[in-house]
């Protein structure tokens, strides 16, 4: 039998102590229960909302919105990135324009998107995809444009067609870059999901938090925050798993 790592135990104790201190301060009314309701109340809200099922609706709405926006960004980002990355002319034509648009805060396109699409799911998806596309796109451009010289020579010697080269050599070689781009994109997608839900009253956790504040139910607000944190954590963990799985071949040779 193995002993539990004392550091891990201490880490757990630290987190627990923080929560307990908060609970104690809230119970003693040292901090305002309006702003900082005790953790027990937030958990109560979480449990009761799980029981009546309303939380799953919000969680599902937010997850689906985030996933769809992200997948849209991923698909467009990888394909366009491959097109730009594998052609020098395309890079010279488009790089300056991309560099100019990239620093634009993604939320700044919300007003434009509302103008064209109204307060709809299509608007939300457009904004999420617009914001989340940059890390994938840039990573994909970089990945496809920096295929090793030797690999290019091998493909040339083997008489690969352009499509074969992209498929069998360039894409696998760009995959590590693309995967790390995808991970950054996912975090951005979650942020924009919350922002668009707040901005245009679309159902989901972002709107729940916003509405909880408007009706001064701060325990609900914290319950929403906890769930959002969990969602972010799980999403990041899932993509790390996918990354490790798809990139396993890289570690086999070494």
């Amino acid at each position, binding site marked *: 039998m193995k002993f539990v790592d004392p550091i891990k135990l201490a*880490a757990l104790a630290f987190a627990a102590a923080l929560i307990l201190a908060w609970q104690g301060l809230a119970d003693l009314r040292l901090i305002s229960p309006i702003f900082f309701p005790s953790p027990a109340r937030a958990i109560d809200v979480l449990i009761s909302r799980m029981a009546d099922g309303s939380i799953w609706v919000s969680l599902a709405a937010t997850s689906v919105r985030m996933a769809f926006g992200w997948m849209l960004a991923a698909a467009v980002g990888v394909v366009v990135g491959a097109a730009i990355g594998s052609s020098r002319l395309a890079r010279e*034509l488009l790089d300056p324009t991309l560099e100019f648009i990239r*620093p634009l805060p993604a*939320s*700044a396109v919300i*007003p434009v998107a509302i103008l064209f699409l109204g307060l709809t799911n299509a608007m939300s998806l457009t904004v999420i995809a617009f914001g989340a596309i940059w890390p994938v796109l840039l990573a994909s451009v970089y990945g496809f444009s920096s295929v090793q010289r030797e690999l290019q020579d091998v493909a040339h010697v083997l008489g690969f067609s352009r499509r074969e080269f992209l498929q069998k050599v360039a894409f696998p070689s760009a995959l590590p870059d693309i995967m790390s781009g995808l991970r950054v994109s996912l975090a951005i997608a979650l942020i924009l999901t919350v922002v668009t839900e707040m901005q245009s009253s679309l159902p989901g956790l*972002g709107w729940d938090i916003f509405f909880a504040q408007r009706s001064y139910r701060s325990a609900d607000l914290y319950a929403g925050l906890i769930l*959002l944190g969990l969602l972010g954590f799980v999403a990041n963990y899932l993509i790390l798993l996918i990354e490790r799985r798809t990139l396993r071949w890289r570690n086999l040779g070494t």
Partner: protein
Amino acid sequence: MRRGMLGSIIPVMILCAWEILSRTGTLPFDAFSRPSDIALAWLSSLMDGSLLLATWQTFETALLGLAIATIVGVLTGAMLGLMPIAERITSPTIEALRPIPAVAFMPLSLMMFGFGVGMEASIVAYACVWPILIVTIGAVRAIERRLLEVAEALELSFPARLWKIILPAAFARINVGLRIAAAIAVVVAVTVEIVLNPRGLGYHLVLAQQSLKVGLMYAQLFWLCVIGYLLNAALRNVGGRSTRILGSV
């Protein structure tokens, strides 16, 4: 030179097509406006100072938030970097807080600070503190052991050790985190303004859209691109220079 020429072909083509299609009535004016109108709206908002005032409001808040995040992040990061055990004990808590999107705290900080600089700066600070914290921990941990031993031999106090040994030695790497955080600061500030806070560039952008001043809206969007581009260029420059100076210490 050739690169600049090639790079401007596509934007110029888009702008010309936009202007022509708008003049011929193919693109509805009330949603697309047209480049000449956007340029006029940009000039007039620049002339009457409203654009510059909004820009200042956004930057002021972003800087305040960034300053708070820098102080908190560097101090905490330096301590955690020096004490690996403390770092391992706190890291699950940090990893649990980090994935919560900063913008999700908007309602909470609105309740605590009301509209204004405070709520926006607090969100910016929350968003910026994580990259600074994590980079600082790594940077401090990578400091050469001998430098810390010298500090110990000289019996420097903790502030003196921090100021004279740790920060100079770790600065080049902390700087990377600061640059990432600075870009995040402006983005988060604009986002808070768009969703909630009635001040700065983000709010003016929403206002222009809601009052159907479409030309002004595009002008402000363009302005945001310009600012972001200049900021990124400036950060790259500053980063390079200060690293060179301090890197030689």
